[in-house]
């Protein structure tokens, strides 16, 4: 699963590079609500990926 480009770009700016929501909004020329919405969607996808991976790990270890 990959994040759509807009979500990935937003995650990189806010989570990795430490820009605030409003700085990211200015840089990407979108409303701050769009930034928050993209991050919300990205969090849900990342959470799904991590929970799925956790399940696989437990299954492989036989626990």
């Amino acid at each position: 699963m990959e994040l759509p480009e807009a979500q990935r770009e937003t995650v990189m700016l806010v989570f990795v590079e430490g820009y605030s929501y409003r700085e990211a909004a200015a840089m990407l020329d979108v409303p701050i609500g769009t930034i928050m919405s993209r991050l919300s969607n990205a969090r849900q996808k990342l959470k799904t990926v991590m929970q799925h991976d956790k399940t696989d790990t437990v299954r492989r270890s036989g626990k």
Partner: protein
Amino acid sequence: MKFSDETLLAYLEGSLDEVEARAVEDAVVDDPVLETRLMTLDPFVPVVQQVFEQVPAAVPQVDLPEPQPVRAATGTGPWRLLGVAASVAVIAVSATVWATRPAELGWAQQAAIYQSLYVPDTIASLDRSAPNLDMQFAQAEAQLGRSLNREVLEALPGLDLKRAQVLSFKGKPLIQIVFANAQGQPFAFCVIRQGDAAPNKDVNQAVLSGLATATWAQDGYGYMLLGSDAQTDLGDELTVLRDVFTG
């Protein structure tokens, strides 16, 4: 409207209903303090940062990493599960975020980062003699293929012209013209030749890398004005430069 940490965590978890989530997002627009609280509480920030600390810049990670503690996932409930999962899910997350392809910043973001490193001492001792500036502007205008209207730049009120420097962004000439304001603080105007196919863009004002900026594009050139800090009022300079640099 005030929001508890529990409510904000619920928002970050995605467990608020649409109306409640919208209320948080609407409030953030006018409330930088709320924005900071949300960013501080966000459990995904340390998780994703951990990924980027462990994944080499250009080589995809192959082996599962050793489990590591996750700072923001020490509570109970879904986030505890998330924290445990995070320690074994670095590969999945890095693939999801596409860690080996970091987002590329545009010329304006890169210029702002560069300019944000300037301090008064950077420009205090620059040689601003007429012959030196003549040479710098000749080089810059030759690279750009257009006039920089030096007489206008030298007449900007409250600014002292210090230097014109030729830089490059992705092979395109990028000229940085640096000034000192009345307090000796750095101030800059940048011009990049983007090419005839580049779209025109109206003025967009934003704080980038802690600096007030105004950017616009016209007839194949991009322009950027950068203040000394986030609060710099660019209005007067912007009016003059927008008039002069229209093509």
